[in-house]
């Protein structure tokens, strides 16, 4: 299998990685860079637990080949807090009870973060629409939606 030497900026840090052609971005993050925040819940782009930002856009990292991200910027859940300070959406998830088992949380946070970047004042319908690709089996989504609303009202994002 051919290897590709790529350069990618992950959470603001420039990384040089040798990746096989069939390695996914998710595998690269978890296995090569020890960033295990993004989760593998299905490996098929169906659950959203692996959602990361790729050049600002939320993508399922299990559906992107690592070789494709050469030169790109990736943000994972580990990149949301700055200097130990939780982002507004992380803080709102903690305060509103948007977290239960926590396995969907990293992907959910990235999708919510991306939504607030492009639409700082979303309606409830817009929030639900934006999170439709992120499955959660614990919360029933009520508190997740409320957390995103709270983060939006905070206006920090």
């Amino acid at each position, binding site marked *: 299998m051919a290897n590709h030497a790529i350069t990618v900026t992950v959470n603001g840090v420039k990384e040089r990685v040798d990746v096989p052609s069939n390695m996914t971005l998710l595998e690269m993050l978890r296995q090569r860079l020890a960033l295990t925040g993004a*989760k593998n819940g299905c490996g*098929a782009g169906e659950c959203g*637990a692996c959602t990361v930002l790729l050049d600002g856009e939320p993508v399922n990292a299990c559906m992107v080949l690592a070789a494709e991200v050469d030169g790109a910027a990736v943000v*994972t859940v580990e990149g949301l807090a700055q200097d130990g300070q939780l982002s507004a959406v992380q803080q709102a998830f903690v305060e509103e009870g948007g*977290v239960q*088992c*926590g396995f969907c*949380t990293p992907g959910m946070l990235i999708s919510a973060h991306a939504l607030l970047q492009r639409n700082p004042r979303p309606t409830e319908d817009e929030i639900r629409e934006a999170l439709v690709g992120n499955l959660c089996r*614990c919360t029933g989504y009520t508190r997740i939606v409320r957390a995103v609303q709270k983060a939006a009202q905070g206006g920090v994002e």
Partner: protein
Amino acid sequence: MPESIVGQSVGRVDARAKVTGAAQFPGDLVLPGMLHGKILFAGRPHARVLGVDAAAALAVPGVVAVLTAADVPVNEYGLQTADQPVLCGPGSSRPGADVVRWEGDHVAVVVAESAEAAARGRDLVRVEYEGLPLLTDPFAALEPGALLLHPHKPASEIHPELNVPGNLLSHHQLRKGDVAAAWAEADVIVEAEYRTPSQEHAYLQPEAGLAYIDEEGRVTVAVAGQWTWEDQRQIAHALDVPPEAVRVIYPAIGGAFGGREDMSLQIVLALAAWKLRRPVKIIWSRQESIVGHCKRHPMWFQCRWGARRDGKLVAAQVRVVADGGAYCYTTNKVLGNTTVTCTGPYEIPNVWVDVDGVYTNNPPFGAFRGFGAPQGIFAAEMQMNKLARALGMDPVEVRLKNLLRDESLTAMGTPLPGGVSLVEVTARCAEAAGWRKTLSGWARPLCPPRPETPHLRRGIGLAVALKNIGFSFGYQENCWAKIELQGEREIERATVYLGAAEVGQGSHTAIQQMAAEALGLRREYVQLVMSDTATSPGSSGSVSASRMTFMAGNAVRGAAESALRLWQAEERPAVAEYVYLAPPTTPFDPETGHGVPNFAYGYVAEAVEVEVDVETGELHLLRVVCANDVGKAVNPRMVEGQIEGGIAQAVGWAVMENLVTEGGRVRSDRLSTYLIPSALDVPGQIDAVIVEHPDPRGPWGVRGMGEMPFIPLAPALVAAVHDATGIWFDELPLTPERIVSGLTGKGTETRRP
């Protein structure tokens, strides 16, 4: 003394780690020199394994070992009865372990230096099978002369309901009064058949784990489960080592809902690390997870209930057949709950109930939020809502005439433990949902049709449920805890040791709150050491049956009292262990079912408002009201989270989830074919009414609650659809196809008396 911490919506102890990505789930764990394992599933539901040829697999570069049935010292396991082989194949230490009984049976585990090599090796293991006839219909499996799936079934000393012949897995029965004679007293009789479907847990974290030999030489398995002590016991049994030689640790667990009550890859992981003396990691794909673990029991109900004109129930006759699948798992306990719940939360003078679990070649069916109560309550509350219609009575009014109260005799011939609040939760739910008290009794809100959208019909429905808390039916329920107080003049730190799993529901946070309360300390002083058999050698029991807060609270309170006494006596550190023993229960009497099956119950009522598109068959859940007596909400925000999450999961079961099997094989083995609710599929509004009617046996009055919000949702929803359309649906899920065929007269119409 700081202000009371029990009752405050404090933040979760694990929230920060979970929002920063720092929380370590089993699949995130790594160790140097770690090997990777892949399990070969049988892929066929019924066959005899004649031989396993691992030569080609072993030739794959990187493959270290291929383990088969002959490598398992005691090749059997099971939570209730050891009827399942660890690995199926010849040369096994147990009779019948050469037969695969479902497609998810394990045949071999391939261990290699990389996951890729292990997968390549697994695909090259050659297995010779002799096909055996398939039994996928529980009714066919019960026919005389049917092929026996477990001819070597061992007799159970502790579970008499399992000692039944043929493919019968378990049997329960209730006999109260004289049902045959009682029909003459009934002015109205409702007869119907119901079918409730299976359900896949679909927790977001597929099974995974890491096994290694720890610094004290113990085979250690870090995995997601629900009961560390029991996993340890079962692993030790299969490896034929003492339990102390095995250590089980639960890191962060990505959901469970009962699906991790029985084990999946624990023994195989331990076996590989124990044989190879190196760390071994296994991660299941989503397909392996859906194929490889148990599901909710599908059930068939035949019900005949009678009532007098004044609404009083006189008799209920219920026959239940449940598909138990290939192995027992918790079928007998699940069906014990179905037995208790299938005549509803009502006092009925004459009861006849028969509940059979049956072995088939389908996936094993086991624990899933509600443990058989959602199925039993579905049938009971469908009957009750139909009776209300037949009697021309309001559904709340007819319930209030029949609900169990303190001192009422249940179908088991004994009263419920004191503090029954069924009337209160029903009234609180009805009021919050818009019912009015009139001179002639309760009256439901009307949902008049709107002329501008004639294809959208609105309706409202209600259902009530009870369910036991904790393990019971004669089992002596228990919970171990230890508290260590450190400091000199003042307590500077309290450390709480408990086995309880944190599966997302918030058990660790609740335990910290209760320990702080019992010790009179701020929460920040209370450190938790949880979910590790090395530090919590006693059994704290399973995180299931809505029991953990109730049981751990009592255990922590006992340990805190003892530790504080030692502290007063100047012991430093002051260390106390405590085992809380719940009030004893009794097994069902084999003839009558009479006894005291449970020591505590939760009570819940739900009302559902729905809009039905009669052209497309689509349902929109506008609002759900849930009145749940939790006794005492230790953390109200987490209680509301359980209510919202339980309702969403019940909506999935009632409306959209559809496990498709064909010849015993699961066809909907992905999240794109097995659909669970997304953020757009859940009710638009959920109103949680937290009722706090203290349980005298619960810590601070706590009852359990994790399962309750799930239980009455489906029958309340079907009643709402009936209110909207005039049609009863006796089978779930209410997919658009089923709704449309019901509305066009092709579906099952209720036979009216």
